[in-house]
């Protein structure tokens, strides 16, 4: 038990902090933070599998997150039948063209020896393919985007339950990781970081600008949700009774009936949003716990030991007959799939898909800070990192505002310095995260909860 003492202590502090937010700000905010902490935890589990288990540096987290989000749209939104009628054929033809290009390129690469001629022919096939694609797609895309552009203007999804999209998100991200892994995994660590970052940018820019796919920067709103809607709750009898029961002591203090009804209404509205968020919390917590159990089991299995051996000494592992390329690819796919799952969870939680919001700062670097701060190679640490860093990311601004007001309280309200500082309070989150990362890297490079090797 002694080994787990600091783990338990760290998690208790974290939960205590979230409860503090609940008391001082509101329970709705606290639950929002908690939900996002859980989503971040799933992302850090994914990143930690790659970095902590295998030493692969993947700065493409943003791309997989976006792809997971895209999966929610593609799976859960009702299909736009009219768009399929006017442009579906062109899009299907394009998919076949892409498949054909891939097969032709593969054929040329396999059949002929390495030569200049081969390079040129591959290049010309790809170039010709792109031109053919554009010619085929252009009328279809135009037709699709002109179908009721204010509300749809895209192909829509399959109209399936939204939870199914979490699996699809993981699959999509995993298959993307397979392609990227095939291209980039041979590179040295810092090149791999740059290459994955840039490929992720390509993915996001495709999602942003192909409006027939998921409306691009016009966003998709009103996605399905696995939890009840607030409006439905507010009108259902059992929920109102539940709220009355919980708050009976408070309600009894109010004498006049109309005031009582008003107070009850307000309570029901507040409670409905808390209830919905609790539903999400339950779902996310289930995912995190399942992932944690699976990854812990994997870490201490022969497979996990093999991964660590490869991470710590590639040459030695290779000499022992381990297939490093294959194992790296496998772990790259697994980690990315988990990140894709997190992306799908996040979009489900928000209920909207906004491709414009996918930026490397928020979806790659902050996630990496979480992994490093929490503890690389330790799943409990990575999850804790997700909690701590997300909490700081959200709460840094209010805390900074409070501190600025405290230190400048002797200055008049109109003091230029004070006004400027108060205006820039939201940016203190970058400062806090950056300094936190630098301090951790310097004085505790193994993270808050370091990796633990159990001798077997």
């Amino acid at each position, binding site marked *: 038990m002694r080994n787990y003492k600091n783990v338990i202590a760290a998690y208790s502090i974290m939960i205590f902090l979230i409860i503090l937010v609940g008391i001082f700000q509101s329970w709705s905010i606290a639950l929002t933070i908690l939900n996002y902490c859980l989503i971040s935890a799933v992302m850090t589990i994914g990143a930690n599998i790659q970095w902590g288990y295998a030493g692969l*540096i993947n700065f493409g987290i943003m791309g997989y997150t976006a792809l997971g989000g895209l999966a929610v749209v593609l799976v859960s939104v009702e299909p736009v039948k009219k768009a399929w009628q006017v442009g579906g054929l062109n899009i299907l033809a394009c998919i076949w063209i892409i498949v054909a290009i891939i097969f032709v390129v593969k054929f040329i690469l396999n059949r002929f020896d390495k030569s200049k001629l081969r*390079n040129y022919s591959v290049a010309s096939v790809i170039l010709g393919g*792109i*031109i053919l694609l*554009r010619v085929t797609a*252009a009328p279809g895309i135009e037709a699709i985007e002109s179908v009721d552009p204010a509300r749809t203007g895209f192909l829509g999804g399959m109209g399936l339950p939204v939870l199914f999209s979490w699996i699809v998100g993981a699959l999509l991200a995993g298959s993307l990781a397979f392609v990227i892994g095939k*291209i*980039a995994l041979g*590179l*040295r*660590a*810092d*090149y791999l*970081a*740059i*290459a994955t*970052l*840039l*490929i992720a*940018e*390509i993915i996001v*820019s*495709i999602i*942003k*600008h192909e409006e027939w796919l998921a409306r691009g920067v016009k966003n998709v709103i009103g996605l399905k949700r696995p939890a009840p809607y607030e409006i439905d709750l507010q009108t259902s009898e059992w929920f109102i009774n539940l709220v009355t029961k919980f708050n009976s002591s408070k309600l009894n203090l109010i004498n006049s009936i109309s005031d009582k009804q008003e107070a009850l209404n307000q309570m029901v509205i507040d409670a409905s949003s808390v209830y919905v968020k609790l539903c999400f919390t339950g779902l996310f917590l289930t995912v995190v716990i399942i992932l944690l159990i699976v990854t812990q089991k994997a870490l201490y299995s022969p497979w996990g030991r093999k991964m660590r051996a490869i991470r710590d000494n590639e040459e030695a592992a290779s000499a022992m007959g381990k297939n490093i390329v294959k194992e790296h690819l496998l772990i790259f796919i697994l980690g990315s799939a988990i990140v894709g799952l997190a992306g799908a969870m996040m979009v489900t939680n928000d209920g909207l898909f906004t491709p414009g919001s996918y930026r490397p*700062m928020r979806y790659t*670097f902050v996630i*990496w*800070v979480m992994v*490093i701060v929490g503890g690389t190679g330790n799943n409990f640490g990575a999850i804790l990192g997700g909690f701590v860093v997300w909490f700081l990311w959200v709460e840094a601004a209010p805390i900074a505002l409070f501190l600025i007001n405290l230190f400048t309280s002797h200055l008049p309200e109109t003091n230029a310095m004070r006004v400027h*500082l108060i*205006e*820039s309070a939201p*940016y*203190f*989150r*970058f*400062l806090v*995260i*950056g*300094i936190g*990362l*630098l301090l951790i*890297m*310097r004085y505790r*490079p193994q993270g808050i909860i370091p990796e633990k090797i159990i001798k077997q």
Partner: protein
Amino acid sequence: MDFLNAIIVLFNFTVIPALAYGSQLALGAIFVTLIYAVLRFANFATGDMMSFGTMFAVILTYYFQSLGFGLGVLPTALLTIPFAILMMILYMLIIDKFVFSYYRIKKSPPVQFAMVSVGVMFVTQALIRIIIGPSDRRFLDGEKFIIKATEFKEMTGLAEGITLKSTQAITIIVTLIVVSIMFWFLNRTKTGTSMRAYSDNEDLALLSGIDPKRVVLITWVIAGILATIGGVLYGLDKSYRPFVYFNNMLPIFAAAIVGGIGNPFGAFLGGYVIAFAEIFVTYAYKRFISYLLPEHLEPDSLLQLLSTDYKFAVSFSILVIVLLIRPSGIFKGKVI
């Protein structure tokens, strides 16, 4: 005549912008490559360091304008560059002293350096936003155009005109001057040679009496000069916005790697390769072709290979292709 018009259309809409943009990328790419060659890490704070230097130039420009200083037809920002460079070098040396030197002495792996530079990136970004804010700023003053399209048309009697913005000319000229001085310094002076020696083989360089501290110091000084000038030129040409500078880091990395990372000349050319590729692939050739072909063959579509939304994606694809076919870059850099 039509042929001349076609050439001028192409020149005006692709070559001139690509040369200016390429120069800005080239300065950044040389900055990345120098840090990589001498200090041996991929600096993820590149974009924000350029932004930090530019911030000083912007603030000083506003200050000088309020004092009434100026260079007449030239932008005031050029006057502020030396001061901005000094501030930038000071900032870089402070960062090096408190952050990077510790890992250099410990001989940490490059990945750890890269993560530390991510921390520096966060801090720099925060400082920029706290000091100047995230909004879009234009700080260009003086004459805006050297050649206007209408004047050019009158002068030559052609149907198409050439527009040359003063910022584009300044960008290209300043870049050429800075880069040639830098190459002269690296190749001809004793200090430059010692830097190259340190970059090639650290142990041998130490054995032959080269002072590592001095090499590192000079690297940061050159890096500060390149970062500030590159940033200010970009800001003059487009506008100063911290978020855009952060994003510019990506094509700059692409340029450095395409040119062969660790090789300053490769990075210089890499900047132009990326810029020309971005603009040539996303340019709509309709007007160009319509001059060359007879009237009845005039194309209906825009004749654009990819829409301009994919500008960045083009440079990243080039990078991926280069990494696949020739990982050491077009001009052999450090082998991966």
